[in-house]
């Protein structure tokens, strides 16, 4: 396994240690070694915004801790949920007296641990409310949306929820905005290669050369179809065919688009795919308000791509456009 690591059982600790040293402007240590917080968190009078999940998805989750974004994250082992204690400690680090919004993805482990963390928070009198991202259209039919996994669309609820909190929103308002973001967001992934968990040392699933898996999950969960490897144009249109009718996204709408690599994809390929996404959306009469093309939510060194669309309304647009500063996402609105 061609990896730059020390001990395969210690990668998360080592990476956290490196991030803390590299970015003291974004990350502060907490009592819990598996919890990182934004240095100025908790901010008195602001709703705390928290997420967390397994490692190996960098810059998610910790890369979205930042100014007007997340206040704290719980960090799990590679591809596995943080403990309930880590979520709970993240709540405590983020709580500025107005409660905490925990915005996380729909995975059994995360669900269980967040639920338990919420009980611990209740014991301590910290009001916590949650939003569960389920943007992955490939993971269950539309009428069973509560079974769908959360993927790159999570970033958008962190962005809008973080912005709403920064602008002084109440816990209910932050939750409402994050929930609306999730409700209006759809994603799908396409895998071109597998990845290897450092502590396992061999692939836990396989994608044959010359094929691709449509609808693959962030941990290699099986998708909706394995097909011949197609062109970027075909991949992008297949993705939109799944996403557009699901909301549905219609002519006249304004959207945010994320095209994210899964870690091992050369970034120029993401731009190539976006080229078609933009063309197809224009054809469909859908306006792209803002696009993010890069490695925003990865799966170790997996080759592949995820497509995410979010329907905007006036409030969400303002929140998406608000300045933010983090390792994974920094936006400035310049006057000039």
């Amino acid at each position, binding site marked *: 396994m061609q990896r730059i690591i020390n001990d395969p059982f210690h990668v998360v600790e080592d990476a956290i240690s490196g991030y803390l040293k590299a970015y003291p402007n974004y990350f502060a240590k907490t009592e819990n070694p598996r919890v990182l917080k934004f240095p100025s968190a908790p901010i008195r009078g602001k709703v705390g915004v928290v997420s967390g999940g397994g490692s190996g998805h960098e810059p998610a989750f910790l890369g979205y801790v930042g100014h007007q974004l997340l206040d704290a994250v719980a960090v799990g082992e590679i591809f596995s949920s943080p*403990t*309930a204690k880590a979520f709970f400690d993240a709540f405590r680090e983020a709580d500025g007296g107005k409660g905490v919004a925990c915005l996380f993805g729909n995975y059994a482990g995360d669900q269980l641990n967040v*639920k*338990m963390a919420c*009980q*611990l928070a*209740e*014991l301590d009198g910290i009001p916590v409310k949650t939003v569960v991202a389920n943007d992955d259209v490939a993971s269950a039919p539309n009428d069973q949306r509560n079974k769908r996994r959360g993927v790159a669309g999570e970033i958008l609820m962190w962005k809008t929820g973080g912005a709403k909190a920064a602008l002084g929103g109440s816990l209910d308002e932050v939750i409402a905005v994050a929930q609306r973001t999730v409700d209006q967001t759809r994603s799908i992934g396409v895998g071109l290669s597998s990845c290897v968990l450092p502590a396992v040392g061999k692939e836990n699933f396989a994608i044959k050369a010359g094929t691709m898996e449509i609808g693959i999950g962030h941990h290699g969960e099986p998708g909706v179809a394995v097909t011949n490897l197609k062109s970027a144009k075909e991949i992008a249109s297949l993705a939109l065919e799944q996403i557009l009718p699901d909301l549905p996204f219609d002519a006249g709408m304004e959207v945010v688009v994320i095209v994210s690599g899964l870690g091992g994809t050369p970034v120029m390929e993401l731009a190539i795919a976006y080229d078609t996404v933009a063309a197809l959306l224009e054809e469909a009469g859908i306006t792209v308000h803002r696009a993010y093309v890069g490695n925003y939510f990865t799966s170790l060194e997996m080759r592949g791509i995820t497509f995410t669309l979010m329907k905007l309304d006036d409030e969400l647009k303002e929140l998406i456009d608000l300045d933010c500063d983090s390792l994974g996402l920094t936006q400035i609105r310049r006057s000039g």
Partner: protein
Amino acid sequence: MTLSTTACSGRALVIELVEAIEEHTMWLSEIDGAIGDGDHGVNLTKGFQLIKTRLGDDVISISQGLALIGKTLLTDIGGSMGPLYGTFFIQMSLASRDRDLADPRTFALMLCRATEEIADLGGAKVGDKTLMDVLVPAQDAYTAAIARGANLDLALREMVAAAERGRDSTRDLVAKLGRAARLGERSRGMLDAGACSCALILKVLARVFSRAR
């Protein structure tokens, strides 16, 4: 501090639970060993000993004692029982906070929240050969008793009896959840470890609460 306040304190609750669990470590592990992985007694004992250490010399309320137990199990004990019993005790703590423990409705609320949240978390139903086979009949018996006008003591006694019947009922069940489920039919004929520990815990709780006058 009088004997009676000590007796109905969280401190007593913790210490009596630790003793009960320690006393039954091997028994619980053996039962789990027959159809599970044999760590149930050891797991719980490790957790409760840690709780005792954390208690130190503190004098705390029942609700605080329940919280201490729940938090420790949730955060320091793995397996299925960390989250499940963690939830059990935390919900009991939340339901008893700032309430009159002598009022039988308090214990009713505690049982109800604990049972509901465990069901929600673990998804087990009566008949699945889990601690739900103890909890649900215990709760039913208790609420039926106070609905009938029984006092706290009597209601608790009826609850314990129902819990023990529930525990014994698991012997003839086939496990539907957890590790033992993999055995299918072969899981029949042995008690369920979680059901045994749950009946034990309810018995201690009943003892402590029946002193809460």
